[in-house]
């Protein structure tokens, strides 16, 4: 008996590993451009960038004030109901969300939320500040600006917006962003309101807070033309440089979020939602691409096995009794009061449930995700016949017997309140059937995790969810307004990059300088005080960045302080290297005057002669303390001894030259 158990465990784990091989999954750093070409990797981005405005987009609540989860003054409840689109059809997502029957709670703080936000008052006039910034970004992306902004209602039935729709409108279409030696093409740029932040989503209850709701965003959508994960990362980076270069967007955690579309040849467009960290995009797109390949492989298997696809269906039974309960309890204690034990047989699905899906995930997780989202069954929500983490042999022997299952079938056991059973069974059958459809990758949005994997979030909505907004009037974008915005437009990212190459800025400094929009500041320092651009770039992007990681500034650090410090050093005829030593103090105490900063680091003025005069004395001292005849050792020791006194008074390169000369002379 024991042997057969071991065999079973071995068997499905083996299956997982073998299927991973079949799919051709490798870690990202071992995957080449050719590998991605082979599977037909394609990706596009939707970047959501918050705009720096005082108020929200359609009401006069302050933007950018956030409440903690427990901080709220009132709570209200809504249910979302699908409505007809402008073209007269119900949207797929809408129907799914309606099926889930969620009760949505909004936790409202008076300071961040008004009756508009919770849909009890019609919208106020569109925020002009946001409108202008959106146009600025539209112009930077060289798009076709529309003649008139029409606000649309984009349905979201998940409750993330209390109205059930997001107000959004197109500012421009068909732009591009020049990167390196190609043009990255843009589909459209829109201005829209941000959504609520989710507090929790358990069972039939979802809770949101409304602080972020209604804050103005731009959404930038690229064509799906990126051919490998690193390219997607790079693109996201460039878009961030561009939006930040205006100086009119919010920065910091959560201020920019990317939705990433991925597909492979034979697969379908899947959208990974709300990725807040650009660096995560690489693994997420990589894993998603191979998830799709795995679904394509599964389809091949199923087509071979199942002859009558049309009539394929699951069988189910509701079990009860002491024995089955005992076995479940032994497995993982899934039992819940009032929940029924439901088992389903999936004909011809043996080996599919344990098929590789993503690192650490298998096909069964696709089903489990949907049970959570659509049928509102909290995870862990099921057991299945191909698990190897717990011993389920006895339990599933019983299940197979009850279901009259055949050897080539697979089984799922789940627990559910009576009223959710029908939806749960429908959900299981629906997901299984998708596995052998012509395109076996369901159009869906997926939620991302830090480890690079994703889970089902909802069905991908189509154009059917768009409605014109009957509460707002179109806003003309006239040439005069465009000209006005053009006058203040920052330089394009491509021009900045050319400038970096001319300045000999090290590559690893690009991201920091561009994303913080520091080039205009550098230009001022270079022009006014004649600093070396390369020195300045490393001073900021290496030294200051390092300091930011080590020290907490008393307030939001104002980069303009750098201008003052550089000016001071220039005026006092100090050597620029002193700035590196001043920076930690300047960063920690931004209001301290430069003289005090110098005192703080014990700087004293010495002329060159005074420093040089110490060299012979030090040579003598070195010879006394050591027998080493290594000239390098004495050089290094002397530099170390003289540095505190010399820094700021003389360049280290010059000092080194003089010491070496003296050593040779000696």
């Amino acid at each position, binding site marked *: 008996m024991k042997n057969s158990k071991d065999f079973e465990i071995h068997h499905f784990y083996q299956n997982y590993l073998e299927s991973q091989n079949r799919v051709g999954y490798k870690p990202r750093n071992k995957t080449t451009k050719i590998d991605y070409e082979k599977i037909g990797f394609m990706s596009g981005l939707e970047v959501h960038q918050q705009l720096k405005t005082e108020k929200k987009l359609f009401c006069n609540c302050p933007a950018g004030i956030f409440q903690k989860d427990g901080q709220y*003054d*009132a*709570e*209200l*409840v*809504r*249910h*979302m*109901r*699908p*409505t*007809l689109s*402008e*073209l*007269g059809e*119900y949207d797929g997502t*809408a129907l799914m969300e309606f099926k889930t029957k969620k009760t949505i709670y909004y936790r409202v703080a*008076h300071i961040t939320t008004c*009756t508009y936000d*919770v*849909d*009890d*008052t*019609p919208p106020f006039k569109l925020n002009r500040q946001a409108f202008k910034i959106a146009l600025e970004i539209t112009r930077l992306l060289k*798009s*076709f*600006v*529309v*003649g*008139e*902004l*029409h606000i*649309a*209602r984009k*349905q979201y*039935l998940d409750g993330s917006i*209390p*109205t*059930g*729709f997001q107000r*959004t*409108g*197109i500012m421009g*279409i*068909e732009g591009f962003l020049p990167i390196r030696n190609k043009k990255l093409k843009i*589909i*459209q740029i*829109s201005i829209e309101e941000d959504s609520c932040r989710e507090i929790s989503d358990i069972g039939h209850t979802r809770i949101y807070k409304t602080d972020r709701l209604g804050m103005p965003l731009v959404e930038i959508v690229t064509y799906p033309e990126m051919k490998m994960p690193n390219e997607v990362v790079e693109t996201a980076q460039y878009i961030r440089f561009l939006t930040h270069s205006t100086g009119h967007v919010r920065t910091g955690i959560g201020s920019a979020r990317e939705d990433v579309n991925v597909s492979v040849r034979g697969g379908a467009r899947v959208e990974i939602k709300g990725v807040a960290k650009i660096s995560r995009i690489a693994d997420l797109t990589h894993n998603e691409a191979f998830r799709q390949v795995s679904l394509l492989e599964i389809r091949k298997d199923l087509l071979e096995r199942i002859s009558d696809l049309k009539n394929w269906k699951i069988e189910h039974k509701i079990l009860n009794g002491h024995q089955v309960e005992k076995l479940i309890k032994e497995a993982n204690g899934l039992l819940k009061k009032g929940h029924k034990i439901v088992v389903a047989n999936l004909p011809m699905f043996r080996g599919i449930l344990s098929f590789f899906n993503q690192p650490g995930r298998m096909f069964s997780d696709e089903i489990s995700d949907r049970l959570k989202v659509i049928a509102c069954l909290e995870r862990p929500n099921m057991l299945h016949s191909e698990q190897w983490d717990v011993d389920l042999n006895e339990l599933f022997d019983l299940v197979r017997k009850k279901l009259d299952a055949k050897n080539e079938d697979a089984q799922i056991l789940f627990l559910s309140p009576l009223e959710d059973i029908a939806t749960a069974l429908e959900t299981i059958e629906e997901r299984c059937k998708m596995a052998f459809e012509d395109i076996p990758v369901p159009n869906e949005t997926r939620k991302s995790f830090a480890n690079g994997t994703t889970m089902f979030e909802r069905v991908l909505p*189509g*154009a*059917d*969810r*768009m*409605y*014109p907004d*009957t509460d707002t*009037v*179109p806003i*003309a974008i*006239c040439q005069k307004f465009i000209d006005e915005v053009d006058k203040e437009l920052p330089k394009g990212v491509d021009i900045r990059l050319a400038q970096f190459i001319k300045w000999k800025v090290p590559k690893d400094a690009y991201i920091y300088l561009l994303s913080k929009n520091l080039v205009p500041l550098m230009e001022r320092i270079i022009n006014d005080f004649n600093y070396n651009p390369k020195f300045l770039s490393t001073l900021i992007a290496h030294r200051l960045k390092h300091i930011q990681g080590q020290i907490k500034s008393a307030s939001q650090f104002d980069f303009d302080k750098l201008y003052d410090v550089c000016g001071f050093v220039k005026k006092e005829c100090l050597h620029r290297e002193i700035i590196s030593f001043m920076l930690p103090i300047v960063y920690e105490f931004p209001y301290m005057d430069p003289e005090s900063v110098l005192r703080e680091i014990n700087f004293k003025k010495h002329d060159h002669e005074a420093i040089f005069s110490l060299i012979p004395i030090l040579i003598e001292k070195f010879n006394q303390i050591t027998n080493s005849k290594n000239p390098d050792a004495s050089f290094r020791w002397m530099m170390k001894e003289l540095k505190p006194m010399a820094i700021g008074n003389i360049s280290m390169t010059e000092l080194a030259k003089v010491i070496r000369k003296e050593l040779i002379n000696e």
Partner: protein
Amino acid sequence: MSDFFMGYKGKAQEILKKYNVRVWSEAKIDTTRGTFQGIVLPRSENDDAYHIVLKLITGYNVGIAVETIQNMVGNGYKKANYKIPEREFPVSKDKKNIKLFGTGGTIASRLDYRTGAVIPAFSPGELYGAVPELADICNLSTDKLFAVFSENMGPAQYKVLAKAIGDEIKRGIDGIVIGHGTDTMHHTAAALSFMVQNPPVPIVLVGSQRSSDRPSSDAALNLIHATKTAADSDIAEVMVCMFGSTSDEYGLLHRGTRVRKMHSSYRSAFRTIGDIPIAKVNRDEIVPLRHDYKHRRKDRDVLVTPVFEERISLIYYYPNMNPDIIESIIDMRYKGIVISGTGLGHINKPLYPAIKRAAEKGVAVYMTVQTLWGYVNMFVYDTGRDLMSIGIIPAENMLPEVAYIKLGWALGQTSDLEKVKEIMLTPICDDITEREPYNGYLVYQGGIPEVEEFIKNFHK
């Protein structure tokens, strides 16, 4: 031809004509700003004549400035097919028969491109498609009496509605629901309270504060509450059924003579003034909040009095009001005036001669209070006594709009001012109440700690 250029006028229409591009065709438009492609949509008639609306493939609409257009090519024709999925409304013997009268409010709706407004959907099949829960509550039949916006409801409609209700009751209906725009719902509720007295079944007015073309609309739940009330409640009165809080939780049943819309847009805009509502209703039950309501009966003895004198006026008094307003009302041969006065029912001295003249000319003049809560009391100050002596009749705690409707209805029955007075001051369905209960006046003030605690813990 107008169909070809729906809503377009002036320059925009000219350019469509010039390039022979019609509404609903797939167009490619070259402009100085770039090339745009999409379906040409009708334009809202209120919008300007300088833009063409395109629906892009992404589902978004954009406007193209006519002055930027260099060339345009139109192809094909794809008219949107608005249809609310229609399914036959299931009928079952053990469910009550409910009649839904439509007046033009939006219970379920679709969009009208010309105005950008929503068009109501109404047949039982359409309603069943949009709100399938209705079939669990009742057997529904519908009758669209008129299609007017709330602000256009008036005496002519009140009379038609009252007669239709009377007829339905005689035919044996179990309950009546009236879909109504919310702005003047309380006027209609008052009118029906007077015109349809002693009904044996519930008569429920319902509407929505958020149109049903949006997912968060209160329309479906309000309709569910209203049909539930009409089918299952024991309350045989004219009522308004609307959200009790902004949350999707429960509705309140307000007596038709004491209800008023108190917010321009809030879901829970309707409030019973100077008293408490009759009951709370949710999907599952109706919970009475008081027990003095009229009960459902088997008989069909309803008294319908569909009359209304239209030459009456409701005046909102303000300091510095000039008597010429009153004078002109008299000169225009109005038969009644309801004044919404300050405080306990006051107006300024310069108006007195005009009021006196009105009384002499046989115009019925009644006083109500613009504070909405509380009674008119004209005995407290001498000025009030003066006013009464020159002919103003205090209308107790009747709401100004209710007094207006009642006066029209009373003058519709008789021009004998003594009889009118008797009708006016005899309470009907609590339009005047003998007493104001302690919890009849509750306007909580935000910011006060205990109130804040209350709104945090209970859904407002």
